[in-house]
């Protein structure tokens, strides 16, 4: 029951925090456009006045891509370095904007202005950055141990059964997914606790996060696990919709843009729902948060 209440409350809170969701979406579009639009210009220049683009109407044509020659190499470098920049920028932006979001979510009927949103973001930034950094480092290390090592192991394994490596990979992915769910819980509890405190300290917040996660492990984990599965399914749905969609008119391309951005908006909303649900669960149980 607690979980359903948390979902319901989290959902309401995330809808109330729509301004924050819009800000997150807008920032994402803006930062990605900084990389994607120059890339588009470079691709346009590489194709010049060629009609070979007609061959791309039915989808990606690897022969045409390879014919780009040196331009393709430049584009690939641009794309990979752009992606690295975006991940870095996204990490910092998330640390910043999550402060505003968690602050908005802490009361179920709390609607705040954009100015208040940014004030809260700035106030929580350093602590949130610390929380995100520490949890991300733990995820990377665990990812290496849980997925990287078994992958290396099976590549040298001459197992009699071909199912064995397959099962090892599946299990390691599932274990990793489970650990990420737990660490997400820690981060979310830590952040939702942090916004309620005047004094900012990422270590204290993380201490609270770990404590609360393991003291209320079963309901918390189940709730997070289900939300993460919803997120994975949603991502697959997006892939299913956007992947094969190949509009052939200007209006179709515009529609593709609108739909893709709507879908990303929903994705941000689901993440906010996760934040809201964890916040709600924390408020519901609230055993003795003075422990830390």
């Amino acid at each position, binding site marked *: 029951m607690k979980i359903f209440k948390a979902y319901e409350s989290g959902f309401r809170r995330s809808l109330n925090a729509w301004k924050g969701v819009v800000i997150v979406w807008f920032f994402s579009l803006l930062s*990605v456009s900084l990389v994607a639009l120059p890339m*588009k210009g470079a691709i346009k220049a590489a194709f010049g006045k060629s009609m070979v683009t007609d061959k791309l109407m039915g989808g990606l044509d690897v022969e045409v891509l390879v014919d780009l020659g040196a331009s393709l190499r430049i584009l690939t470098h641009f794309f990979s370095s752009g992606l690295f920049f975006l991940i870095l920028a996204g990490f910092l932006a998330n640390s910043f904007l999550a402060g505003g979001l968690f602050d908005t979510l802490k009361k179920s009927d709390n609607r705040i202005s954009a100015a208040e949103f940014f004030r809260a973001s700035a106030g929580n930034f350093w602590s949130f950055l610390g929380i995100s950094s520490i949890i991300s480092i733990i995820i990377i290390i665990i990812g290496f141990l849980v997925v990287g090592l078994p992958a290396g192991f099976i590549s040298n394994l001459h197992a009699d*059964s071909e199912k064995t490596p397959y099962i090892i990979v599946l299990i390691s992915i599932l274990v990793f997914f489970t650990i990420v769910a737990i660490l997400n819980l820690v981060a979310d509890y830590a952040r939702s606790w942090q916004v309620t405190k005047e004094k900012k300290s990422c270590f204290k917040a993380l201490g609270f996060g770990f404590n609360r996660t393991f003291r209320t492990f079963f309901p918390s984990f189940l709730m997070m696990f289900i939300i993460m599965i919803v997120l994975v399914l949603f991502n697959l749905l997006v892939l299913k919709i956007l992947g094969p969609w190949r509009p052939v008119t200007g209006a179709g391309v515009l529609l*593709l843009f609108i739909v893709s951005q709507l879908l990303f908006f929903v994705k941000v909303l689901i993440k906010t729902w996760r934040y809201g649900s964890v916040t709600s669960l924390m408020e519901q149980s609230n055993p003795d948060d003075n422990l830390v």
Partner: protein
Amino acid sequence: MLNLKKKFIPQISQIGEDNLQPICADKFDLREILLTTDLMKKTLLTILSLMFINCVSNSQIINREPLSPRITGYRIEAKLNTESQTVVGYMEAFWVNYSSDMVRDVQLHMYMNAFKSNKTTLYSEINSKASLKETEKGRIDIQTFTAADGANLLPSAQYFSPDDGNLHDSTVIQVILPQAVKPGDTVSIKVNFETKLPSRIRRTGYADDYYFIAQWFPKFGVYETTGMRYRMTSGWNCHQFHAHSEFYANHSVYDVKITVPNEYIVGTGGLLLDETDSGDGEKTLTYRAEDIPDFAWTAWPGYKVFTEQWEHVKITLLIPGERLEQVERQFTAVKNALEYLTKNVGPYPWPHLTFVDPPAKGSGAGGMEYTTIFTSASFFKIPVCFHVPEMVTVHEFGHAYFMGILASNEFEEPWMDEGINSFWEERIMDHYWGENSGMIDNPLLRISDKSISRISYVSSGSRQVVSNNEYSWNYPHHTYSMMSYQKTATWLYTLMGIIGEETTNEIFREYYRRWAFKHPSGKDFINVVNDIVRNTHGDEFGPDMNWFFDQTLYGTGICDYKVSDLHNIKLESALKDSTLVDTLKKNLPAHDTLYKAVACIERAGEVMLPVDVLIHFTNGDEVLESWDGKARYKDFVYTGKRMIEWIKVDPEYKIRMDVNFINNSMTQDPNRIPLRRFTNKIISLMQFFVSAFTL
């Protein structure tokens, strides 16, 4: 060349299809004959050996008539020892001197010795300095080597390295004969050998209890007579085992008995005639193969066996039990290949075919061909949209034609097998699995099989360092596969683009008719092309097609036709300009504007091929121009009231050698829809990706 056919082609014995017992193989065991006197022994052995030769060369079990001259034949008894990973064998073999020479030696391949140390030619070519572990070593030891009369030939045998003089390589053995062999005479040998298999499977070897056994017995080289291929004088063609090379051998008859532990499932390139259980935990399988250039086999307890029939061919598939969901995919692939090649090249002449999908631990054996047995390559749970298993199966089966039936010299002209076979593989894959999805067929990504070759060739930085006319081990800068497989397939597609699909098929039908069960060379193939193109198209492409092969097969140039410019010049005083002559102008009203519309085409590469140029005007008119493609540039000029809207050189992308399709066209109004669509998708991809990386 002497007409030896009458003399040596055996008389066809009248064996009914239901009487599948080998005539001679089981009638006697030479080793059990004990004779008391040397003379009697020698005489009898000679007689018995000749009986064996006569039996082999005269008997027909698989096909009613021999498909190839009986130049070589082998009878082998082999026992697989799974404790020591060795094959202990006894072999009787013959070679018939079809030449008009007195031949003083025989040369044989001893290919398992390529795995003897890290100093062999194989390992030095792959630059492997690390010394081999004992288990990784392989070798073939000859214990006895005698002539038919029992004379010991070992003292006159020596290893030598005809290709690179490598003293550490012992993959070719030369045996000086006691007497020179007269034209028409036969050399028969008897060899006791032991083959130690290497643990790392590189075409051959073992992994745990999995065995793929190839290049495992002493095998005659090819004695080439004057005039054959490029021979100025007769001689042995017997190359060493190289890292990047395949093989060359006579079509032969094989009678092979294989003894393995009972639990092992065996697959070979032969037809199973008999299976007996020795009662001591082992079984002996008797196989017969006719007219194939090599005999390979596999043994593993984990195989599941499936058989299906395609017309006259009984197809056997050996596959790991965990990949049963792929059985249908594999049979579909091999049947498609059979159907397509039968229709467009010629009939598959054997009634049997075995193919193997090796397990992961034996994957080193995957993707190799031995005519009537070949290996595919796959893995557990491979998605249906990735046609890798199908592609490998189609490819390796295709070798039954371009290595098996049309047994070119793969050492010296690798393009004739791998290149031609890749061309057919790509045609088959794209024909049956989709013109744009022969390789990958997923809603997110579709790739045709023919794209793979072109991409590999076009994107190679070394595409101009060497021509296709090179010995396989001499290709520099890791260009062996790109040149032998991909460049060849790409220029064969280009040839088809020029002369048409049906003419191309007719070329291969004629190539099959003329050269099946012989050893064609590149020039023989070109002669067929020239004859068929002349018969079909007359002088349309000149007296012959040598100009094409000189540039593609023997040349290193690249092909690149481009539209360099498109302009429509408004002629202000057009009507006053008496120098302008245009039929359109005569009918123009005085107030109409005239344009000088120019399509500028350039040849940016060295290769000169005839190309079509399609010019589209603003009023909807289209003109298809033909250009011989020889000059460095060509301007097509039109004067009239119409303006050029777009130009395409090679509008159907038939010249697949063209290294850049992007510059093949130019338009006033480029279609930006795919680019905008792509940008939108990249934006959302990045958004979702970055979001997944943040908490």
